[in-house]
């Protein structure tokens, strides 16, 4: 009887552990498939041209060009712009919700902000095209509002809930003793927040920003719809741009499987994968530090 029981238990454990390995296999699989297709690009295009040349024109009649620099710049601009917006609005809101708002208000506002995270990116992109870009065009006197600025605003809205949510969690889970000790010494609430809480929460907030960064780098649809899609090197935030994600989305339907263009798009995908992997890795280290410090 005991033997049967032991076998059954071992079998269940084996079954469950096999299911868990799937997650690992998928990650490895993504990397492998991106790699084996993307790496073939460099048999025909030099890495120097790929990374440093700023002309991307794979379908040019005559001499196709394979420089993704302007695409990388596009990604970096949207990431930077959206983070600026999301961090400013997000941290301020997180502090408000965690330290200032009455619990009842907090109970209502938190889920409302979470709902922004639930809005599909295409819908935000649609609002960007129909409402925000004409508005930006009018305000700044441009011919159309499809540019890096509009993209930054839209992506900033998408990243906002992540930053607010995590930062607020970090702040609320700081030990009560911090607040009491600070106030007991005669600090005002703002002094307590500024000089005690925020420094203590710094690693956690950094981690939140890293996760937001991940989201911004990976955003495809909304940015595709409002970025303007110009392959030329942008010179300001009012110029149209084409981030790497949007580029893949636009061109993937037109490439022939196995062609150099196809492989080049996979190479871009590989770069994106590596970028988000590195950011995630860094944010993991930061979170581990925070956990060890305050056990939250």
């Amino acid at each position, binding site marked *: 009887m005991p033997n049967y029981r032991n076998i059954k*238990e071992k079998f269940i*454990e084996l*079954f*469950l*552990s096999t*299911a*868990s390995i*799937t*997650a*690992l296999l*998928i*990650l490895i*699989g*993504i990397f492998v*498939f*991106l790699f084996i*297709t993307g790496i073939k690009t460099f048999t025909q295009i030099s890495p120097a041209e790929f990374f440093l040349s700023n002309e991307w024109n794979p379908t040019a009649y005559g001499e196709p060009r394979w420089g993704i620099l302007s695409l990388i710049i596009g990604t970096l601009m949207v990431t930077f712009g959206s983070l600026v917006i999301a961090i400013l*609005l*997000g941290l*301020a809101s997180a502090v408000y*919700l965690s330290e*200032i*708002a009455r619990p009842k208000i907090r109970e209502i*506002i938190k889920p409302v*902000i979470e709902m*922004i995270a*639930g*809005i*599909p*990116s*295409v*819908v*935000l992109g*649609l*609002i960007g095209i*129909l*409402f925000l870009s004409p508005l930006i065009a009018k305000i700044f006197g441009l011919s159309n509002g499809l540019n890096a600025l509009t993209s930054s605003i839209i992506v900033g809205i998408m990243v*906002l809930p992540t930053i607010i949510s995590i930062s607020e969690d970090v702040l609320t889970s700081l030990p009560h003793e911090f607040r009491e000790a600070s106030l007991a010494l005669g600090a*005002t*609430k703002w*002094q307590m927040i500024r000089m005690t809480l925020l420094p203590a929460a710094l690693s956690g907030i950094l981690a939140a920003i890293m*996760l937001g960064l991940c*989201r911004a780098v*990976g955003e*495809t*649809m909304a940015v*595709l*719809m409002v970025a303007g899609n110009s392959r030329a090197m942008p010179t300001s935030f009012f110029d149209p741009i084409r981030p790497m*994600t949007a580029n*893949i*989305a636009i061109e*993937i*339907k037109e490439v022939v499987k196995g062609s150099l263009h196809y492989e080049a*798009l996979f190479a871009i*995908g590989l770069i*994106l994968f590596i970028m*988000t992997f590195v*950011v*995630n*890795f860094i944010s993991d280290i930061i979170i581990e530090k925070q956990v060890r410090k305050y056990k939250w």
Partner: protein
Amino acid sequence: MVNEYVRQNIYFILFRIATFLSVAVLLFILLYILKEGIGVIDTKFLTSMWSHREITEGGIFPAIIGTIFLAIGVSIISIPFGICTAIYLNEYAKENLLTRTIKLAIRNLAGVPSIVYGIFGLSFFVFFLKLGGSLIAASLTLGCMTLPWIITASEESLKAVPHSFREGSFALGATKWQTIRKNVLPHSFGGMLTGSILGISRAMGETAPIIMVGATFFMGYLPSSPFDKFMALPYHLFILATQHSSPYAREYALGTSLVLIALIFMLNSGVFILRYKLRKKKEW
């Protein structure tokens, strides 16, 4: 000291503004879509097949069906794997390199850009496994993307069950699986389910992963097998918004958005109510 109070008040007002701005953005989006999209919604819009030449003659019914089929496909694929992984990680896994690696992999999967999932799906499911652009290829692709969300939500649910329940069970001579089945799962299953449904509702709104693995803008028939192509609300709305030439495309895009948001909202509300009921039942 008066200075400090003034400073505080200024900052706090700014923070208040920031928060209400964030809330206002959401409300604006919802109201805008509602106001601009409601005009085109009627029975014909919701229940007719898509009319390619003159879009006002048809509706987005096949896109709605496609999205629902996709949601079902993703659920079948990712929910069992997700829940099993969560149970293993939370109840069985020891602190070793393999466990840490799996957890790292899950966190990374959550951060991979949606378009990268798309091209992975293209090269692996569509070409390598020769599934072609189809509902099943899209379900698998989107399923990979949804998996980390479901695992995370399920883990939270399991962690919320107090350790003393497990201890009491072990002390009576129960095996690990008996303890999980009788004393942990019944109290965490509701949470796992609601978390999974939320994950699926997020998946329903995704466009980038499905663009190249089976979603089409126009099909004259409803998908009848997993190997068929399909229409889907987010992709449909994307094409209407960016590439369609009809003068009514804008309206129809807004209407499609409204339907998509309504679908997601219904799922989320269902979860909200379920969670409330579960919380009331909870006795500890």
